[in-house]
């Protein structure tokens, strides 16, 4: 599109911002113009300054997060310094990443109405507009529903409906995918795209997940790194430039596959959208690559199943449970985990994944069925006794951390068990080493990043020397670099002989790091299979709220006869490349 003929609505001119509590600026010398009706993706790893950019546009900086701005930032011709947060909110509507924090209404209708209530819109008009907005978002029948009965994706869609109904011209999405499962994320991107096409509003999406964000076309991508703009390119150009890797952004999986197969993708192939990409030059190469490697690969992937002769470590038989009588969450779950396995537990929100792990840890008692550990029924064991064998790490590390210093937190469980000083010190030191936290042992936890805190919580569970580790969404909310670090770290744990259960929606994690995936649905086990079998089965993908991997799409478009074989080839190659197919 021709930007010359359009009006710029947001203009950064030599703009810098420094939070009052930080010693260096979070944004430095930004020059950027966003034009009326554009759809722009602002990309960057965590800590790059992309959120600060968003805060400067919507006014949270400096009005909510104080600091100093220099240079100029205008929105529709007015300096933001001359507007207060409220008047800025008349121009820019923001959707934040936490679906629960921003859903303040007691019901759907009240949440959509929130903005209008604050603008003192008269009741009859408000009711009409709420209805219209709900109809638009396809949630008319849920108007009286409470937030607790809604999924994260539904909550976010409702927030978006509320923001739109306020009639702002610029919409800002601050990491809209961060807290959604892949299926809800896909729908969110589709909703944003529909809004863009139907209303022509200017749209800014702040994200670090490139492939998911590119599920629908964007006009431009701006890459931010260390507080500066390092790229301002069309998607096709960015995807073929080395900038992506340098900025710590994960490229789309289908491009990785093409690279593995030896293809050299250029901007003229239009790689930003798989469904319109020119694949002609690569089809033969992909075919040859798949066929050439397949025989060995089956063996390599199958290797982990060599263990199947080992006796099961953890067995669940006919487990049933519900928090309220008459509303079972689990009806009949049977599964068995062998020593050293890495198993992914997947399923929709509310399918009972977390509940299942709580039953294993003894937080709740199952209403039927039995749990065995090394053949022994552990139904009578206390929470504390089970924790010696099975460690459970919550999704939110802040829910587990209660001490100020790293080493105190890690020693907590040992102290509580009355273990002697010397033994405590020895075990804590070992856990610190394994988790790569030794250099930080005397640091206050408040100075650590989210990923480091997560490791502290893992270490604090590991000191109890469990044989099984259950991790609830270990990679949630982390960018590519931290995702890699976290998973490499967890894989090292496996070398220490640990059995690992992942509760996850992350299809990269499933594909790259698990031996087996168990799909929970309707209170039972719907499938128990190789991860690649789950991810290539459209029905299972839908049941688990996952997303079909783009590798399948690539195989289809390239006309490969055996898409599953292709995905397997990819996994084997990927594990080999990462040196992790042991």
């Amino acid at each position, binding site marked *: 599109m021709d930007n010359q003929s359009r009006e710029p609505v947001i203009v950064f001119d030599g703009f810098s911002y420094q*939070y009052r509590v930080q010693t260096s600026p979070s944004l430095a010398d930004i020059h950027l113009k966003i034009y009326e009706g554009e759809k722009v993706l602002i990309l960057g790893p965590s800590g790059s300054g992309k959120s600060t950019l968003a805060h400067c546009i919507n006014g949270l900086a400096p009005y909510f997060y104080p600091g100093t701005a220099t240079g100029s930032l205008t929105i529709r011709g007015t300096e933001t310094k001359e507007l207060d947060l409220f008047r800025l909110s008349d121009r820019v509507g923001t959707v934040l990443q936490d679906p629960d924090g921003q859903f303040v209404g007691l019901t759907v209708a009240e949440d959509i109405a929130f903005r209008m209530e604050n603008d003192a819109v008269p009741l009859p008009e408000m009711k009409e507009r709420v209805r219209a907005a709900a109809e638009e978002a396809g949630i008319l029948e849920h108007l009286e529903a409470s937030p607790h009965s809604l999924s994260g994706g539904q909550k976010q869609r409702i927030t978006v409906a509320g923001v739109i109904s306020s009639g702002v011209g610029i919409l800002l999405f601050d990491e809209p995918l961060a807290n959604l499962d892949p299926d809800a994320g896909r729908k969110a991107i589709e909703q944003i795209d529909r809004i863009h096409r139907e209303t022509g509003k200017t749209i800014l999406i702040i994200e670090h997940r490139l492939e998911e964000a590119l599920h629908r076309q964007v006009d431009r991508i701006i890459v931010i790194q260390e507080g500066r703009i390092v790229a301002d390119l069309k998607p096709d150009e960015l995807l073929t430039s080395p900038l992506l890797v340098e900025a710590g952004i994960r490229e789309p999986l289908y491009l990785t596959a093409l690279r593995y197969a030896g293809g050299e993708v250029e901007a003229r192939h239009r790689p930003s959208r798989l469904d319109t990409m020119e694949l002609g030059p690569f089809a033969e190469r992909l075919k040859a690559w798949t066929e050439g490697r397949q025989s060995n690969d089956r063996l390599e992937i199958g290797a982990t199943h060599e263990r199947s002769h080992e006796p099961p470590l953890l067995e669940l038989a006919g487990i049933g449970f519900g928090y309220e009588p008459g509303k079972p969450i689990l009806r009949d779950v049977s599964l068995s985990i062998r020593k050293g396995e890495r198993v992914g537990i997947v399923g929709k929100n509310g399918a009972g994944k977390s509940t299942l792990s709580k039953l294993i840890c003894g937080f709740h008692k199952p209403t039927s069925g039995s749990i065995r550990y090394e053949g022994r029924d552990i139904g009578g064991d206390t929470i504390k006794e089970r924790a010696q064998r099975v460690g459970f790490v919550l999704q939110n590390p802040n829910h587990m951390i*209660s001490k100020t210093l790293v080493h105190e937190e890690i020693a907590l469980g040992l102290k509580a068990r009355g273990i002697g000083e010397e033994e405590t010190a020895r075990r804590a030191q070992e856990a610190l080493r394994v988790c790569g936290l030794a250099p930080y042992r005397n640091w*206050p936890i*408040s*100075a650590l990043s989210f990923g480091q805190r997560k490791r502290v919580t893992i270490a604090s569970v590991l000191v109890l020397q469990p044989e099984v580790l259950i991790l609830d969404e270990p990679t949630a909310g982390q960018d590519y670099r931290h995702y890699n670090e976290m998973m490499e770290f967890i894989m090292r744990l496996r070398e220490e002989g640990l059995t690992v259960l992942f509760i996850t929606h992350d299809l990269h994690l499933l594909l790259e790091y698990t031996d087996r995936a168990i799909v929970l649905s309707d209170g039972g086990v719907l499938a128990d299979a190789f991860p690649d079998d789950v991810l290539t089965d459209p029905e299972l993908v839908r049941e688990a709220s996952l997303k079909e991997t783009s590798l399948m799409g690539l195989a289809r478009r390239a006309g490969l006869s055996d898409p599953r074989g292709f995905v397997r080839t990819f996994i084997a190659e990927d594990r080999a490349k990462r040196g992790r197919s042991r």
Partner: protein
Amino acid sequence: MSLFSARNANPLSIRNTVAIGIGSALFAILGRFGSVPSGLPDTNIETTYALLALFAILYGPLVGLLVGFIGHTLKDSIFYVSPWFSWIIASAIVGLIIGLAANRIRARDGEFGRKEIITFNVVQTAANAIAWFVVAPTLDILIYAEPSGKSYTQGLVAGASNIVTVAVLGTLLLTAYAKTRTKQGSLTKEA
């Protein structure tokens, strides 16, 4: 980043409004599920008053007052049906009085040393004494015409137990909280 660096002059700022809501929710939940046996018969450690003290210090007297009032009303209503007004008002007074010390105790800036601990405990003792030794029993007698001996004894037990609870748990909580707010100087990685 510090989210608190702007000290709010406005006692009913949006942040304080939300603090009243979330604080009240916490008060109700801890009031219902956060009782810990003290070892003495029929006396529990009411952790919720340590929470009230912390919120009053962090957000000031108005938030303290309203967290005590709304939180206690909600606790009584949604968990026990019927609000017991004399004690609700006493909770509100505890929050209010402790909140008056908010300007002297800057736990948010990581300051909670000996001086602050003494100030905090003097104020919280006064607050609990006024609320439980005087206000709650007097209202009990006025409203419910309960025997004065019983009311004052009850108030004495509740007040003493809350003073001890806040002295121990409140002080520990504020100390721990202040530590998380300490400005990190130069942190170095160790080998």
